[in-house]
């Protein structure tokens, strides 16, 4: 069929089954927007900033497991999208971002709104394309979606010069792709898997180390089965919260810089690390030479470059977590679960010694209380997104995540401003679910304009601002490591949050007591409008435990304990 390049873009999006596209128009992409106007195969949501468009597509992708799509114009439209690409890249999120570019004849001339998009995005995309002719456009679009979702997923940029969107040519969307240089390994080598299973049977203190790859490969049922069958305890990274489910007795918690005591001790004392889609990030490992010092390592990852990048690996298995675990399960029929009994008991004692705890108060709301209260009130049903800072860590530590894709946050890049637009994307994907962005008084302002988007499209996201009047996480480091010199972290000057939300078509609540917290949440859920819950919390609360950067995991700063006499110790 004959059609313009712009139409081809729309047809490809429809053919890929994408229902919602997030974006922002401009000169170089106007032809595509003209076609968007004419079609009804997908909806387009106009965010109020390109960064937010990409984060929203990202939130949509993380919530559903499908490819998210965002569209931006050339030059500043594209550069605004870069943080979104980098955020998705670091967490391996499948996205296709389509950017307009100046006409082919102007490329290289410093034309109006020309910027080298493929050059800039090279290190923060899985792959990118500058389309050079109309003939290759259908193939490139097909490849973009395929590359985004296959293997280790990631964002793909397709940069399309304006004249190509105008040109008319024959369109046939390919049924399949042919990229001979790209062949991801899914299955896992049988011999290696056998050896790994053998090692599991011989270990005394094995530990499941679960990462974001377990979420990406939709492996949670299999991972739970693996834990169940072997009775091997498990720790989750920040990106894997929800894989085991909070109620699972084999889950020790989150490990790493803000991991709980039992999880970090487990990693320090284990004799066999079974890594399932985790990548040994420095926020997880602390000092590498002390990390899992007594352990052999089984490393299952779809990306060979992740394996043995940071630690020596004894049993490397390149493959998809779900497919590899599927193969392991029948081989573990005869595993002797009693073997690990003593180990489980040691870890149980560790957890009793230093449970994930905090000292509650009646005078002021403690952030941990707020998170736990959210868990009690909306729990399994809600999708929780977050921004970056203390609130993010408290959410990861204290929210009872029950399933993967329930917890959406920027782990790898740590992008403040991610949470709100990501929540908009997630809510659009699951309108019937409560979607809450747990955010900070710093982060929320980094994409606050999205109040307007959420109000216009009636996307009732609840933003719970844990307001400490600080760039809290940075303030915490200043407290611990910079002798309390609070350089540029005091946010005492604040907007009127309620008025701000209202001015943009939402609602606001000022919350200072536990009663107000409950009442505000109840009202927010009933109102069905985008809202800010401005929750005043204890200003100087710290995220604990904490492993100072570069320190060994077992050297944790621990939270104060409440003894039986009620005194804080």
């Amino acid at each position, binding site marked *: 069929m004959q059609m313009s390049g712009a139409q081809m873009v729309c047809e490809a999006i429809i053919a890929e089954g994408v229902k919602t596209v997030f974006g922002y128009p401009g000169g170089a992409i106007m032809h595509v927007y003209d076609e968007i106007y004419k079609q009804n195969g997908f909806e387009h949501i106009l965010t109020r900033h390109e960064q937010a468009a990409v984060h929203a597509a990202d939130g949509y992708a993380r919530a559903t497991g499908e490819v998210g799509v965002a569209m931006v114009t050339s030059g500043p439209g594209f550069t605004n999208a870069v943080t979104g690409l980098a955020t998705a890249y670091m967490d391996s999120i499948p996205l296709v971002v389509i950017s307009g570019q100046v006409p082919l004849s102007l490329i290289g001339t410093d034309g109006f709104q020309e910027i080298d998009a*493929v*050059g800039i995005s*090279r*290190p923060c995309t*899985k*792959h990118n394309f*500058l389309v*050079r002719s109309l003939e290759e456009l259908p193939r490139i679009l097909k490849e973009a979606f395929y*590359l985004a979702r296959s293997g280790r997923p990631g964002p793909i940029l397709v940069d399309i010069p304006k004249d190509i969107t105008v040109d008319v040519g024959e369109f046939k969307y390919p049924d399949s792709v042919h*990229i*001979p*240089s*790209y062949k991801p390994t899914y299955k896992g080598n049988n011999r290696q898997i056998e050896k790994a299973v053998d090692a599991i049977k011989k270990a005394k203190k094995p530990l499941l180390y679960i990462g974001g790859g377990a979420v990406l490969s939709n492996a949670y049922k299999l991972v739970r089965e693996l834990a169940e069958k072997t009775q091997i305890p498990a720790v989750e990274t920040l990106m894997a919260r929800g894989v085991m489910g909070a109620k699972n007795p084999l889950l020790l918690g989150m490990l790493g810089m803000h991991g709980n005591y039992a999880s970090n001790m487990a990693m320090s004392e284990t004799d066999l690390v079974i890594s399932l889609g985790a990548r040994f990030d420095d926020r997880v490992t602390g000092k590498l030479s002390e990390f899992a010092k007594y352990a052999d390592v089984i490393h299952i990852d779809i*990306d*060979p*470059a992740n394996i*043995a*990048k940071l630690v*020596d690996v004894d049993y490397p298995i390149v493959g998809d977590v779900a497919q590899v675990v599927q193969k392991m399960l029948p081989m573990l029929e005869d595993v002797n679960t009693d073997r690990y009994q003593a180990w489980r008991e040691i870890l149980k004692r560790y957890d009793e010694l230093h449970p994930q705890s905090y000292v509650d108060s009646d005078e002021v709301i403690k952030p941990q209380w707020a998170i736990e209260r959210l868990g009690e009130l909306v729990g399994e049903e809600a999708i929780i997104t977050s921004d970056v800072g203390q609130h993010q860590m408290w959410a990861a530590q204290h929210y009872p995540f029950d399933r993967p894709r329930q917890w959406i946050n920027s782990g790898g890049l740590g992008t403040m401003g991610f949470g709100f637009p990501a929540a908009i994307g997630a809510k659009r994907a699951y309108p019937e679910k409560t979607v809450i962005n747990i955010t900070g008084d710093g982060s929320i302002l980094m994409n606050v304009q999205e109040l307007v988007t959420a109000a216009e499209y009636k996307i009732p996201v609840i933003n719970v601002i844990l307001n400490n009047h600080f760039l809290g996480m940075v303030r915490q480091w200043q407290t611990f490591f910079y002798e309390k010199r609070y350089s540029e972290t005091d946010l005492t000057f604040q907007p009127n949050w309620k008025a701000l939300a209202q001015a943009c078509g939402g609602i606001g609540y000022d919350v200072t007591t536990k009663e107000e917290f409950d009442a505000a949440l109840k009202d927010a859920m009933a109102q069905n409008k985008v809202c800010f819950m401005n929750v005043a919390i204890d200003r100087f609360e710290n995220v604990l435990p904490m492993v100072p950067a570069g320190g060994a995991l077992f050297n944790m700063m621990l939270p104060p304990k409440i003894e039986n006499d009620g005194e804080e110790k």
Partner: protein
Amino acid sequence: MANSNNERRVISVVVMNESSVLARVTALFAGRGYNIESLTVAPIPNSDKSHITIETKGNARVMEQITKQLHKLIPVYKVIEHEEMVEKEMVLVKFPIGTNMSDIAALAAAYNGGIVNVGPEMVVAQVADEPKRVKHFIEAAERYNPCEIVRGGVVAIER
């Protein structure tokens, strides 16, 4: 393994011959802090592929990462970390015309090369040999005050 020292290594990368593929490869080295000592690239005859030869340095862990990261690039077909190889490098050296021609001819001949061009004000000698021998040739040639030395990168083929 990880503590073995920074060894010189030669890697061949077979890539799809498309625009920006070289940029992807070099950007990867720059972005991840790997070394490029020399680099050559040319299309593979009768194919839609190109052959890139990179001379680099690093310990075993770094080399493993370089190889794997190169493999991850979508247009990369094959990465060969050479063990048993034939490698050659070329160098052109320009001398002022006053230099003793027979000395230069004899020197270049000793390294399987020769004089390839004589102009009104200069002579150009060429040598193509193993990189180590090319280095020796350059050291010897430097005694004759050359006005310019242009080295090509290494090319290698597995034996």
